């Protein structure tokens, strides 16, 4: 049974608990308001945004639980980046300032994820920050939209870079910045509308945070913050301490650019070694491929790599389905150290481009989960199929339109459970857009959106099943694609089969077909053309011959697999009447085992 900490904190546990509740409630309010107010579907439908309260020392106090993990995780890094850049320029933060920031080499997750930070002042001194981040539809890259910019050769090609820019100074809007911004991005009304929503939400957060400080006093709130970090830190330390000391490695691979003649741009390894020592761990990425200096699949160490590491670790070690909800805050990350060689994919050097770092980050997460499978086999899953997405654009009668279609992936099989089907995976958790919303607002038609059949990866607990989605262009337009997993299937675990790769097909109006790689820079499409996105399936867990025959029958009845596959993959004999032939199954399994 747990006991309370020795009273090193100068706060009683009751007040601490009450203040934690208030801080969490404020972050949720910020997220709620941002989501409700925002214009672009990537924020309001896909929920690709973050909101957090940060203390005066740059530590995260609380995050909005609606936000996608990858967005709230990096906010402390944004704050540190802002500090560094302001200090270098000899500037200070003043009351009424609103700071815009998206520099991926100074804490930002990547360029499209623009943060707006509102400082909270009490009696002339900064007592914390409220920050919102959101993925913006366009950030002024060389092709439309802010995804699928897979051919940017450096960070300048990725779009506008905001390095701690004060869009409000002492409460006054900096019109020149806004004017310049509007003239350098596509869809300025949409994007600026979303930015205004971000600012409004951050201001509400800062005000409410000050309310808490006024009510309880700064010293008490600081003590409550410390108690919160300490409490989270203890939970993570306890989880790490439960692991045997040792080094646990795993390697995954990304396609990179499969159609590129340069071998240094494809088949890239991501290697993770988790070194457990007592109640701390070092996650060492040595062995990861060198950076690709002129293609944007590099992952900034701060903002992507660190978040991928933290979020994957906590999903396994402090799984919320097992441990309950635990607030994401800076205490959770204290016992975790990250090492990544400079100049590698996991720690690129400026100005190597990084905008398409999302999918490599998923493979990094996969590597972490696979490495942990060696120590906590009942808490992990087989390899997960990567996600990513497509940006559809065009210029119709109502002007330019952009639609973001985020891909789902699927989970590998788990101890006691099959993998989750057709969901966003690991450090990402966005949402798709309703077909009825898409077709009502942009000239696209979704011809098919279903699960794949006859491809689930066998295992005692089989891998999750990916989706297939077919999109028809009703008018001429274009698409850019940013994805992974066309070559490397998700790994199987403990005797389970590897999963299935993803693929992408362009069917032209005349019926001709072109197979596309996982990364496609802006490509034109004609009315009547179709894009078929077939998504990967997660790896199996455990030996297929150990799978409960009743579960195999269920999969046949549900048409995930055929009766022939039941026999071939699982040794389960299904009769014409769709029942398990128990005797024949036992004999078949016996024969294969022997």
């Amino acid at each position: 049974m747990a006991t309370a900490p020795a009273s090193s904190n100068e706060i009683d546990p009751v007040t601490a608990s009450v203040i934690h509740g208030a801080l969490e409630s404020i972050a949720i309010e910020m997220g709620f308001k941002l989501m409700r107010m925002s214009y672009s579907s990537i924020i309001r439908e896909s929920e690709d945004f973050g909101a957090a309260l940060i203390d005066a020392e740059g530590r995260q106090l609380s995050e909005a639980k609606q936000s996608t993990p990858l967005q709230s995780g990096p906010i402390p890094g944004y704050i540190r980046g802002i500090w560094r850049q302001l200090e270098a320029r000899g500037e200070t933060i003043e009351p009424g300032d609103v700071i815009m920031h998206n520099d991926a080499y100074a804490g930002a997750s990547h360029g499209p994820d623009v943060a707006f930070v509102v400082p909270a002042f009490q009696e002339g001194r900064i007592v914390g920050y409220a920050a919102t981040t959101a993925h913006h539809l366009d950030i002024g890259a060389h092709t439309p939209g802010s995804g699928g910019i897979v051919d940017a050769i450096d960070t300048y090609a990725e779009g506008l870079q905001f390095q701690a820019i004060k869009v409000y100074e002492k409460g006054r809007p900096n019109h020149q910045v806004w004017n310049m911004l509007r003239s350098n991005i596509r869809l300025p009304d949409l994007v600026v509308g979303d930015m205004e929503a971000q600012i409004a939400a951050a201001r509400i957060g800062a005000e409410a945070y000050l309310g808490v400080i006024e009510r309880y006093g700064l010293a008490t709130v600081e003590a409550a913050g410390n108690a919160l970090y300490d409490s989270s830190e203890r939970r993570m330390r306890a989880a790490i301490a439960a692991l045997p000391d040792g080094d646990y490695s795993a390697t995954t691979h990304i396609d990179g650019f499969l159609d590129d003649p340069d071998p240094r741009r494809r088949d890239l390894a991501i290697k993770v070694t988790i070194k457990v020592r007592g109640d701390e761990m070092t996650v060492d990425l040595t062995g990861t491929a060198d950076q690709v200096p002129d293609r944007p699949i590099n992952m900034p160490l701060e903002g992507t790599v660190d978040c991928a590491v933290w979020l994957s670790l906590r999903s396994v070690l402090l799984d919320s389905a097992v441990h309950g909800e635990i607030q994401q805050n800076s205490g959770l990350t204290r016992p975790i150290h990250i090492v990544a060689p400079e100049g590698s994919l996991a720690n690129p050097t400026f100005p190597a481009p990084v905008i398409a770092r999302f999918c490599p980050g998923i493979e990094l997460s996969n590597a972490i989960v696979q490495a942990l499978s060696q120590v906590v086999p009942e808490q992990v899953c087989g390899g997960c199929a990567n996600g990513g997405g497509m940006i559809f654009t065009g210029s119709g009668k109502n002007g330019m339109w952009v639609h973001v279609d985020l891909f789902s992936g699927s989970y590998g099989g788990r101890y006691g459970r099959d993998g989750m089907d057709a969901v966003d995976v690991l450090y990402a958790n966005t949402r798709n857009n309703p077909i009825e919303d898409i077709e009502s607002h942009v000239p696209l038609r979704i011809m098919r959106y279903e699960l794949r059949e006859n491809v689930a990866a066998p295992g005692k607990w089989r891998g999750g099943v990916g989706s297939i989605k077919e999109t028809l262009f009703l008018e001429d337009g274009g698409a850019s694609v940013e994805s992974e997993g066309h070559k490397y299937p998700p790994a199987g675990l403990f005797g389970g089969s590897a999963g299935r790769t993803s693929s992408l097909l362009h069917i032209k109006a005349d019926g001709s077909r072109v197979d596309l790689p996982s990364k496609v820079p802006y490509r034109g499409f004609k009315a009547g053309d179709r894009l078929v996105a077939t998504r990967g399936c997660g790896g199996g867990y455990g030996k297929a011959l150990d799978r409960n025959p009743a579960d195999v029958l269920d999969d046949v009845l549900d048409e995930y697999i055929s009766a022939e596959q039941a026999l071939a993959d699982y040794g389960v004999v299904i009769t014409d009447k769709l029942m398990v032939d128990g005797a024949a199954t036992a004999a078949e399994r016996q024969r294969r085992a022997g």
Partner: protein
Amino acid sequence: MKLIGVDVGGTFTDLVYTDTDEHRTQIHKVATTPEDPSIGVITGIEELCRAHAIEPGEIDHVYHSTTIATNAVLEYRGARTGVITSQGYRDILHIGRHQRPQHYSIMQEIPWQDRPLARRRFRRTVPERLIPPLGEVLVPLDEDAVRHVARQFRDEGVESIAICFLFSYLNPAHENRARDIVQEEYPEAFVTTSATVSPQFREFERFTTAAMNAFIGPKVRYYVDQLDHRLREGGLKADLHIMRSNGGIATPEQVVDTPVLTLLSGPAAGVLGGAWAGALSDRHRLITFDVGGTSADIGVVVDGRLGEASARDTWIAGYPVMVPMIDIHTIGAGGGSIAHIDPGGAFRVGPQSAGSRPGPAAYGRGGTEPTVTDANVVLGRLDAGNFLGGAMSLDADASHAVIGELAGRLGLAKLEAAEGVITILNANMANAIRSRTVQKGIDPREFALVAFGGAGPLHGAEVAAMLAIPEVIVPPHPGITSAVGMLTTELKYDTIKTAFQVSSELDLDRMNADFAGMEAEILRQFETDGVAEGEVDFARFLDLRYVGQGYELRIPVSVGAIARATIEETLAAFHRQHEAEYGHAFPDTPIEIVNLRTIGTSPTPQIEKPVVNQGGSLEAALVKVDRTVFRGDDGLVDHETRFYRRDRLPLDQPVAGPAIILQTDSTTVVPPGWTFVADRHGNLILTSGGR
């Protein structure tokens, strides 16, 4: 008129009888019979009639709230359900929004994948496709395919069928035709269409709503038949009406067709009961605060208008349902909430609850976890000898033992720990209220908190204090406020139509035609109930958002032909509401009219204001004087406190706290610095600041 309201809860079935001619009201409580709750209902009615010499045959109306539908979903025990859907989209119900319920979990469940309302083997597709903007036919319905699937389902023992086609909210013709075909081929099946239950866009949510309707349909139909049968057997001739989640009642026939509309039947009745109690004392800006053993339900009522949940915020057992519901915010906080230290060392209360079995340690039923009730006992606020009017005795020693053990682990004195449990719980509840008020631009200081349910009056004043709410109202019978609420409602039917019009190019003729069609539809429903056109009142709303946004705000619009000027007023109101709720408006951005909504209501007989006796005296009401503990500015303070019997209190005589007021179904805590008065309308009014 003789009316009975029956609310079936998890533990008790509460009944209220009222005779509007004789101005007489009686209450009664029986144990809920979970296997078949209709048994408890009829037992309760029979006992109540016997006890008060009421002739069952003379009862005119029975109003009922039921948890049958909710429990079927929560326990995942419904019909074998099939779905007929558009070819190419077999797995909309399974893929959902491709989002996991939890961010940080490998081992989580996804309700719609792990507990599918219709398994994949029973999801069949047929050729058909409609397209926006008006639901034009792209692929005609393949009627033979529908017929074929219907026969298959019959042969496979599928009991209930949901027909779910894309864009059916724009044009229900294909769904309706498919329903007719299924009914021809398989007349015994329960058949539902997605446009009937929820004619609005977002296919996953609409299909889920329809599949859930199908999943629970046969069970609800059976229950309603059973109940009706038992009522007739018991000699009742009364009209039966059932409460729905929108706060209105409907006939059994309507409920049987669309049981998914009854999922929040009980909590909705609670909000109505709270609204009624507030109105008795002429308070019309109310926050209802219904606290039981495991959860607290919070609602907001302004001038009798109940907040309605946004279509995207309504979930049952982890499944989204897009149907009209009163906006009720539920959190896991109640008398049974368990206080614990989490593995990181933080002190927490709830959301786990000891429920009623084993219940708090004080119940003496084997509970060993420290709960909120135990903390109240330790602080002297619950009197071991006078719990529920003495109907149940509490084991104070057990409470002291479990709270003492918790205090040891926290390194706190026992009283500090007990008071901490209450403060943390109250803060959780205050945060929940804040999310429905302050965070939506509503100032709670202008409201009264109506505290009811078994535990609401114990915590109401301290929660109100946290939010600077100046006044708390405790209804006459806090424990049965939901049952009373049912006697305050009216027949109510909603319709909705997705419009997708933009303010800059409005087609008013289309809007007027749509509204006229919707009102005709509602009148048809009332006609089925035997209600004439003249007895129906309409209210209209538009669900509006700025073009590009994804969430709508509901703004009222006037009834009758809508002119440009009418719309301009509504749009201006939207800008104001947006500013109020989100702290920001975009005045230059065009507005999209997403949905049209119409609500038709028709009055039914209701409970009258209670007639209150002339009251007693403080001396007569005084039960005892004892010690209670409250937090003061400088720590805990031990107060000499008077305990009163509520039914003997004098009327209109303000009394300063601290005080504890006892009655059979609840206990009211009046903290130091608060004053209470028993008013002429049967309410207790608690006022902060000692005025």
